[in-house]
């Protein structure tokens, strides 16, 4: 029993790393463009299908397929900005309309995936070794995903803090008009943000590919998970999202080990509802008074 829980806890923490990345992307887009990207998990799914297609049908090495997926997802992010988000911003759509439009996008992506790749599970065939410490077993693919996610987060942190474009992204998130007066073109920054968010879904897809097989409804639970984490940590709060990711990773993994994955999903949603009821500003969020 102890070993089971230990295994679950460690795998939960390892999963937390990738969830942190997922939540970071959603948070970044929300912070800058003020839109909740409800199709974020679906973009990850699309990235996994790209990896699968590049490996299975074009016979590319897995690493190369993953690397090619990154710019591809970046372009898709910019495409979403151009064809979905910009029209919403131009129309000054209210938050409900924005949410519905992006929820609609999830249906489009999922059904497109079903038409192109079918409803079956698709995965790349790769067996990475297990590492064992006593009775605790670690999958190498989970370890790669965890450390890769931390490295990516560090890279994003450096990008946001050490470059002019990163600084502009943070400025826009705080005050759009004031940013315009600094000579920043918000449109350009929105594109950069959606491109970065897109590349991030590619990175996550690359880490997920050796772990999970993908199917047309794979993305939904991850969108939900990311959204729960973002709300748990406080909308737009990067550190809160980071902590929230590990909390949710741990909780779902432990409860899945103790009961079943369905219960784990329920528990995640219960946490979500509890946060909204008890602490709507999230763990580290700042209460906004109107």
């Amino acid at each position, binding site marked *: 029993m102890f070993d089971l829980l230990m295994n679950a806890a460690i795998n939960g923490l390892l999963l937390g790393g990738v969830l942190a990345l997922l939540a970071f992307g959603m948070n970044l887009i929300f912070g800058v463009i003020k839109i909740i990207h409800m199709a974020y998990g679906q973009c990850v799914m699309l990235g996994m299908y790209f990896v699968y297609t590049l490996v299975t049908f074009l016979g590319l090495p897995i690493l190369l397929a993953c690397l090619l997926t990154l710019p591809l997802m970046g372009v898709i992010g910019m495409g979403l900005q151009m064809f979905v988000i910009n029209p919403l911003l131009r129309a000054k759509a209210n938050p409900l309309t924005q949410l519905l439009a992006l929820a609609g996008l999830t249906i489009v992506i999922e059904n497109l995936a079903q038409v192109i790749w079918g409803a079956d599970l698709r995965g790349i065939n790769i067996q990475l070794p297990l590492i064992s410490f006593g009775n605790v077993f670690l999958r190498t693919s989970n370890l790669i995903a965890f450390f890769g996610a931390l490295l990516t987060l560090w890279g994003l942190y450096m990008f946001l803090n050490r470059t002019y474009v990163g600084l502009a992204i*943070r*400025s826009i998130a*705080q005050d759009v*008009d004031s940013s*315009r*007066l600094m*000579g920043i073109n918000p449109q350009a920054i929105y594109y950069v943000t959606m491109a970065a968010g897109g590349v991030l879904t590619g990175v996550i897809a690359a880490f997920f590919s050796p772990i999970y097989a993908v199917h047309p409804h794979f993305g939904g639970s991850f969108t939900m998970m990311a959204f729960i984490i973002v709300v748990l940590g406080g909308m737009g709060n990067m550190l809160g999202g980071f902590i929230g990711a590990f909390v949710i990773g741990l909780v779902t993994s432990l409860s899945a080990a103790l009961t079943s994955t369905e219960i784990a999903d329920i528990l995640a949603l219960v946490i979500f509802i509890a946060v909204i009821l008890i602490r709507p500003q999230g763990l580290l969020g700042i209460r906004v008074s109107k």
Partner: protein
Amino acid sequence: MLEIQDLNVSYGEFQALFGVSLTVAEKETVITVGPNGAGKSTLLKTVSGLLRPRSGNITFLGKRIEGLPAHVIVDMGITHVPEGGRLFPYLTVLENLKIGSYLPRARSESGKILNEIYQLFPILDERKKQLADTMSGGERQMLAIARCLMSRPKLILLDEPSSGLAPRVVSRVLEFVHTIKSQGYAILMVEQNVRKALRLSDRAYLMESGRVHKEGTQQSFFEDPYIKKAYIGL
């Protein structure tokens, strides 16, 4: 340098500016006074591109700029310090200054300009690692002005730099404006603190309910009985 002709600006149905005309020459400090709601801030926002005029011309250094996006107008050399400074509260003092030189032409010089600003204003150097949010009102206002200098502007639009500050601090901020004026920048300033601001100015405009009611030199404003009575309180 700046020429505004017959400018009309509306917020939806509500018209805020009616045929406003105004000029600022090279190295000149022009102040616009008037009560709340006279359209002074609207005027500055329209010049800097935050608002689009309904009609009228704005010419800067021989080029028409009305209706251009704000980030393009900054690049032409007009910088705008909005009311309250509008700093980025969760960026440090240094980051606020750095983002002021976001424009590619200013970026390459950013280190040099930063040194000039630290010379002018040593406290910003001492506090550079602090979040802008933690500075006092007067320091924040001065940081906002310093930030706009980072873009190497030719004309500075100042919207009520003394608003919300204690009287002693007001004098310090206006002194800082005076320092900038003596460096040769052209300044168009909107101010409620009429007496102190007029002393800084070369020329002044009086705006009431969206229209220019008087234009003249500093002297003529100090001598005008209506302005003396309504705005200076002598």
